[in-house]
């Protein structure tokens, strides 16, 4: 049957593609179904008492409750909003400082030499290790988690901008120089767009780290936010609240990543070339 050559191949390719798409859906659904199935089985057969693990339906019901009955002073969406606000502010700060710094390090060896030793030393301190320090400095207010998220989100911004800057075709920089580009024009009009695909990849990684660091920080220092809500749930022995919080964190994190990936794909596809 393969002796038909070209037409047979031309026919086979799209079919194989749709096959793999179908298989993907089946496998993904199977994965989710297994996860929930085990959860349902374990809870409904009474293998684990509901004080440790409530059933999926109990968690879902709890999530619905949380959206109109305040828990620890706020509704679920208010906790979420508080978390997103902290995240948004420090993520923005990390991007606005990190990306230009990375580009400058990639452009000027002197800046690279100046910053690298300090940066390399600091970036291996896990964000969570910044928590005690940030409490010393900022107490338990808004700024403490902000610093922790910044610690998580900053490095990938710098590293990817740096790598992106290093990989810019040297001739493009030279062409810009001979056309009279200097200083900020060079940085903003030439290096930033030329390194953009790398930078956006960094922004995505950075958003993930930042979001995770935020929850970590809130577990310890928050007085609002999803992390704080989880801790309150734990001390009130309300496992459904704990899991509801975790589920929200997971889903929102995935949404953030999905958005960033869409941005990344769009840039890779439509960014010249």
């Amino acid at each position, binding site marked *: 049957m393969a002796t038909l050559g070209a037409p047979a191949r031309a026919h086979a390719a799209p079919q194989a593609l749709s096959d793999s798409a179908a298989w993907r859906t089946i496998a993904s659904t199977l994965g989710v179904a297994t996860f929930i199935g085990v959860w349902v089985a374990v809870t409904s057969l009474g293998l684990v008492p509901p004080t440790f693990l409530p059933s999926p339906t109990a968690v879902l019901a709890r999530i619905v409750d949380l959206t109109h009955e305040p828990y620890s002073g706020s509704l679920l969406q208010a906790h979420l909003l508080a978390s997103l606000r902290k995240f948004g502010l420090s993520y923005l700060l990390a991007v606005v400082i990190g990306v230009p710094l990375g580009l400058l390090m990639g452009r000027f060896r002197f800046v690279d030499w100046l910053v690298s030793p300090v940066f390399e030393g600091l970036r291996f301190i896990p964000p969570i290790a910044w928590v005690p320090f940030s409490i010393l400095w900022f107490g338990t207010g808004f700024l403490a988690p902000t610093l922790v998220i910044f610690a998580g989100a900053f490095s990938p911004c710098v590293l990817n901008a740096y790598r992106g800057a290093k990989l810019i*075709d040297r*001739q*493009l920089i*030279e*062409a*810009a*120089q*001979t*056309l*009279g*580009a*200097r200083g900020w*024009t060079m940085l903003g*009009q*030439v290096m930033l*767009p*030329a390194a*953009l695909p790398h930078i956006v990849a960094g922004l995505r990684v950075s958003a993930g780290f930042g979001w995770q660091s935020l929850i970590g920080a809130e577990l310890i220092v928050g007085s609002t936010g999803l992390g704080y809500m989880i801790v309150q749930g734990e001390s009130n022995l309300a496992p459904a609240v704990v899991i509801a919080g975790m589920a929200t964190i997971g889903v929102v994190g995935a949404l953030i990543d999905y958005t960033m990936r869409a941005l990344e794909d769009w840039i890779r596809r439509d*960014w*010249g*070339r």
Partner: protein
Amino acid sequence: MDEVSFVVAEREFVAIVGPSGCGKTTLLRMAAGLDFPTGGAVRVGDRQIDGPGSDRAVVFQQFALFPWKTVADNIAFGLKCRGTAESARQEIVSHYVALMGLQGYERAFPHQLSGGMQQRVAIARSYALEPSVLLMDEPFGALDAQTRVGMQEELVRLSRINPRTVLFITHSVEEAVYLADRVVVMTRRPGRIREIVEVTPVRRREGWDACERIEDVMDQESFVHLRTHIWKLLREQHGASAH
């Protein structure tokens, strides 16, 4: 490179030919301010060159267009850096778009254009700055033979309409003789000037400019004579370096 010294006059088109490794590209890069001589100096007018600048725009072999900018924005880039007002910028851009036959492609991106068209954009981008010296580093080296011929004719036409001071690097002897007023022939290791061949007197005497097409010029006995002369200069050194 050693003892390379020559002067390019205003509105003169000088081509540099030489074997690879003779330093002709380094010479152009020094004029651009991208490389620096270990001794001696490069001057434009009275000013010694200490870095790149838009008074010496470069056309690169690989075009080096900004892939995220449209044709019009690429051409406008240098003017924008210079702080030219928006209205003046648009006027200059559309002038060079028309001159280089790029009408209808203003909003296209470089990757949507053929190599020849991309190099037209790069040339327009440099010309738009009206630089004191235009530096061209094998600008047609990456193009296929037919496109290359078209671009050479275009460049001759352009320098008749809009004569500029040009320093042009090439390894094609024909290209050098066809385009240049003077051809600087260089030797390899150490890179030195072998001879500077005057083309303009021959071009005027033999009326090359009356020819529309490059092949009509290349057919002329005077052209063949000059080309052969330069080939011999290049081959002599090749023989010498083999020993």
